[in-house]
């Protein structure tokens, strides 16, 4: 131990040392602050939406404002929160630590990606100020290209720029995983989190460029009136949907795969036993990354797609459910013969397990052609993807944040408050989104500013749940900030966890992560359930 080496947080305190830092850990912190900021904006907006939906008449905001609200909620939550969330914060921080490397392969590219992210974010926020955007986050043509009367191009530019930030991050992750693993760290000794980041990066690098070009074509059609999708020229609006969903369906897996990785780290640690089925879980991540590209047509079942394409996409959508099922199965079995500690990260991880299962199962509903024609574009779909994205991804992010908080900040969070907010979030979430399944099947279309009066009770329940959910999010924000100063100091390995980041790096780590390059001798998750442990 060399006490003279400063940790990464103390190594320079000027603005320059943060904003021009190429240290992956500092960039991760910058990203964490940024996505928290965007999450707050997206959350505030959805607060207004839920307030509006308390009454069927639509009397809080005008319909144009409402349309801008749900659009900006979607745009910010998808591109400025969910897609970056785990990869750029926990992934950025942990990938080199887990691999035993000093940094990512391209540290300056990593910093550039943060600036691109912020640049894209500024464009998007500017668009909100100069008139908002009312196309929905899906930007469907010809509404977006010809009819919308809002700042479509500005937002498209923002998302376009952020796309390059995503591509840069993914290239960095893939190359780092290939070239910078510690001695002895073979592919099948990697923590599953690394596998899931790798799978995520595959999707990012291959899908995001298609989004970029789609937005360029949209902007060109809107700004320069060059016909690309214009039906009056014989163009096909469905072509836009093909291009868009070729990106945006895999993007759903960009959002969920890293969460699956986090859960696979947390469960073995708090069940004190090796993960059950390492290889099935690892392979299923790659399978999801690949199969995820084959199913985008299910977003177009009622759009006027060919019946043959519908049958094929429906079949493939069922196929992609299988690797997700494999994961759920293996996580559950991992609890068998474990020594289970219900700490905050574990509550989140098990919450993820439950909510993701519901989200995945309702995916089977929308993949069935007969049921989809009824529930398509209704609140059923809204509930389905919120179960996966909020119930799944956000739970995993919160779990991961609590799990690695001691490593990132050197402080322990207050455990009691952690558990209280985890349960609050779980309760609030279900109350918010479960009624939406019923609403959807009853036939309440999404993006409705006003709605028939008989849907009010369920909508009020949903809004009530949303306010509980909000408490569940605000609480951790305060106690985590509180812990930075008053939290108990964390030792190197407060969870007695395995992994290079716990066993070889300080809390918080030094600038170059390790005093000497670590060497790996055995498999990941080398826990022994027969041994009792005491957490800090």
């Amino acid at each position, binding site marked *: 131990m060399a006490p003279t080496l400063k940790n990464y947080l103390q190594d320079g305190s000027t603005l320059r040392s943060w904003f021009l830092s190429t240290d992956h850990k500092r960039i991760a912190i910058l990203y964490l602050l940024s996505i928290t900021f965007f999450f707050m904006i997206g959350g505030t907006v959805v607060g207004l939406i839920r307030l509006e939906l308390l009454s069927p008449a639509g009397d809080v905001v005008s319909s144009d404002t409402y349309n801008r609200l749900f659009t900006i909620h979607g745009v910010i939550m998808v591109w400025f929160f969910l897609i970056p969330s785990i990869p750029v914060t926990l992934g950025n921080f942990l990938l080199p630590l887990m691999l035993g490397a000093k940094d990512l392969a391209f540290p300056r590219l990593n910093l550039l990606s943060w600036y691109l992210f912020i640049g894209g974010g500024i464009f998007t926020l500017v668009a909100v100020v100069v008139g908002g955007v009312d196309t929905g986050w899906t930007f469907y043509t010809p509404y977006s290209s010809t009819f919308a009367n809002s700042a479509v191009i500005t937002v498209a530019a923002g998302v376009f720029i952020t796309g390059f930030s995503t591509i840069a991050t993914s290239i960095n992750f893939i190359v780092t995983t290939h070239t910078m*693993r510690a001695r002895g760290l073979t*592919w099948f000794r990697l923590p599953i989190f690394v596998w899931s980041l790798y799978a995520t990066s595959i999707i990012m690098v291959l899908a995001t460029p298609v989004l970029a070009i789609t937005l360029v074509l949209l902007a060109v059609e809107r700004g320069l009136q060059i016909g690309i999708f214009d039906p009056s020229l014989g163009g096909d609006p469905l072509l836009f949907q*093909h291009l868009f969903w070729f990106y945006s369906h895999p993007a759903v897996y960009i959002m969920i795969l890293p969460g699956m990785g986090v859960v696979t780290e947390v469960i073995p640690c708090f069940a004190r036993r090796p993960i059950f089925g390492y290889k099935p879980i690892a392979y299923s991540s790659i399978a999801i990354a690949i199969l995820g590209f084959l199913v*985008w047509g299910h977003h177009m079942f009622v759009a006027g*797609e060919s019946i043959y394409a519908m049958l*094929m996409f429906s079949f493939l959508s069922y196929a992609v459910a299988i690797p997700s099922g494999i994961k759920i199965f293996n996580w559950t079995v991992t609890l068998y013969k474990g020594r289970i500690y219900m700490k905050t990260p574990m509550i989140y991880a098990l919450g993820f397990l439950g909510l993701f299962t519901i989200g995945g199962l309702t995916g089977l509903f929308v993949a069935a052609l007969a049921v989809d024609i009824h529930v398509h574009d209704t609140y059923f779909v809204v509930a389905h993807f919120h179960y996966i994205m909020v119930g799944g991804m956000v739970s995993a992010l919160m779990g991961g944040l609590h799990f690695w908080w001691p490593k990132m900040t050197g402080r322990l969070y207050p455990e009691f408050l952690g558990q209280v907010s985890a349960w609050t979030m779980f309760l609030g979430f279900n109350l918010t989104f479960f009624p939406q399944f019923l609403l959807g099947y009853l036939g309440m279309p999404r993006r409705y500013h006003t709605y028939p009066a008989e849907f009010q009770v369920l909508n009020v329940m949903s809004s009530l749940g949303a306010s509980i959910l909000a408490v569940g999010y605000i609480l951790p924000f305060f106690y985590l900030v509180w812990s930075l100063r008053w939290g108990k100091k964390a030792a190197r390995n407060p969870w007695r966890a395995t992994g290079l980041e716990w066993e070889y790096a300080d809390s918080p780590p030094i600038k170059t992560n390790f005093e000497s390059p670590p060497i790996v001798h055995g498999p990941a998750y080398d826990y022994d359930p027969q041994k009792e442990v005491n957490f800090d």
Partner: protein
Amino acid sequence: MSPASDQPRHAQIHPGAEEGSLREIVAVWLGLIFLLCATVIAHFLTHGMLALLAAFGIAIAKMGLVMFYYMHLKYRPHIVWIFSAAAFLWLIIFFGLSLSDYVTRHWILLVP
């Protein structure tokens, strides 16, 4: 991807290594120009499906030459082959599944 295959190869690849002689570079260029002439001739002589096949066959051949020799794919480990093939594979997925919609849109399905 075998688990440990990347590790020992670190030492083998060195930026100074000689890959592809000058003669090879010039020969490839001659090949490319020859293919360009061929595509021009084919353009004037063929039409219909044949013209399409000629134009794209030659384009793919040109791409092969550039990728294998000028971009040194020939001298790279398999992992780079996989990376470069991935984009093309994904394009096939993209084209194939999209076209499956457009090509079959006007087919009539006989329902049991």
